[in-house]
């Protein structure tokens, strides 16, 4: 296909989206690869319908979320025991240490699947209106959920 190099180039520039979203949902290395494959395949199939007026990153984000959350996956195992208490205050006041990136990821993984989608979109800079449109829920509901998710995240970190 003539379009393939363009598609691959766009995906390479935005592969961080796929990496981050898969990282907060995949339960093991095998599932991670499966999700990568499925996201790339679904994006490739949807590529002919991609309209240039939408940002590619937003388009890819939607494909990623829709694919990952509707995929049949293994039940989640929380396989880390270490306390995340250390970064709880940092999350509460909006700052964390650089080396705590992985810890933040692990904390997000403790949230419910839909809450993970909401917080990831929020952290990626999507406003509540965009989140509402991407999820298909009301603006007010997004605001309420986001407030609760932030509190929940802090509580998980304090455990």
């Amino acid at each position, binding site marked *: *296909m003539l379009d*393939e*190099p363009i598609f*691959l180039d766009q*995906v*390479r520039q935005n*592969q*961080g*989206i796929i*990496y*981050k979203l898969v*990282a907060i949902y995949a339960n093991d*290395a095998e599932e991670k*690869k*499966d999700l*990568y*494959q*499925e996201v*790339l*395949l*679904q994006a*490739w199939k*949807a590529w002919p*319908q991609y309209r240039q007026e*939408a940002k590619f990153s937003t*388009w890819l984000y*939607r*494909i990623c979320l*829709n*694919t990952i*959350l*509707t*995929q*049949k996956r293994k*039940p989640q195992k929380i396989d880390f025991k270490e306390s995340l208490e250390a970064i709880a205050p*940092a999350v509460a006041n*909006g*700052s*964390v*240490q*650089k080396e*705590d*990136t992985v810890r*933040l*990821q692990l904390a997000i993984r403790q949230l419910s*699947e*839909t809450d993970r*989608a909401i917080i*990831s979109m929020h*952290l*990626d800079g999507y406003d509540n209106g965009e989140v509402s*449109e*991407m*999820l*298909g*829920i*009301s603006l007010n*509901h997004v605001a*309420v*959920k986001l407030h609760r998710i932030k509190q929940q995240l802090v509580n998980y970190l304090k455990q």
Partner: protein
Amino acid sequence: MSVEQAWNDMGVHQDDDLAAMLKEGAIPQFTSKNPLVKLRKNLLRNVLTCIPTTTFFLVAVFIYPVWQAQVILILLFVFSVCYIYSSWQLYKQVDATSSSDRPLLAELKRHHQTIKHWLVMQQWLVLPLYPFACLCGFLMRLGSQENITTFFSYEGVVFIVVVIIIVTTILCFFATRLLSHLFFGRYLIRLRKMIQELEGGQ
């Protein structure tokens, strides 16, 4: 460093597995593990395997000149045709591609409804097939009209046959349900949970 920055830093990290997949010609070769893709394949396989069986039921009606067997064969033929038709309709309806135009909630509901539809179809349409097919096989083994008439002339045989059909139908219903639950049960529960989470408070 802000939480957003920490999150963005995660995206800067390059994964070798992902990078290895981003090569020309690789993506179209991937096999989808999407549940709806599997469902479509399953539906197509069912349709293709049912066609020879259904043809056999029809041909057998003319081969076996035993009216009891003929009645059951006609019933089996009708059930099979209904099953093939429903499977084919569902196969055509199922869109197994993820669309960026559909919001997540709509996508979750679409998956849930499609799989539920398939499960209900399996449970209600397939279950009469097995008991009637067994009975038909039994009658065919008896052979002639004479043997069948003699068999049914024994006291209580009709009652026993009816009871066996009812029991096997119930067993088939629960067996189909159990198999469906083993295959899609946990997935459906997860989808329903996510739908409820997103709909809650709306």
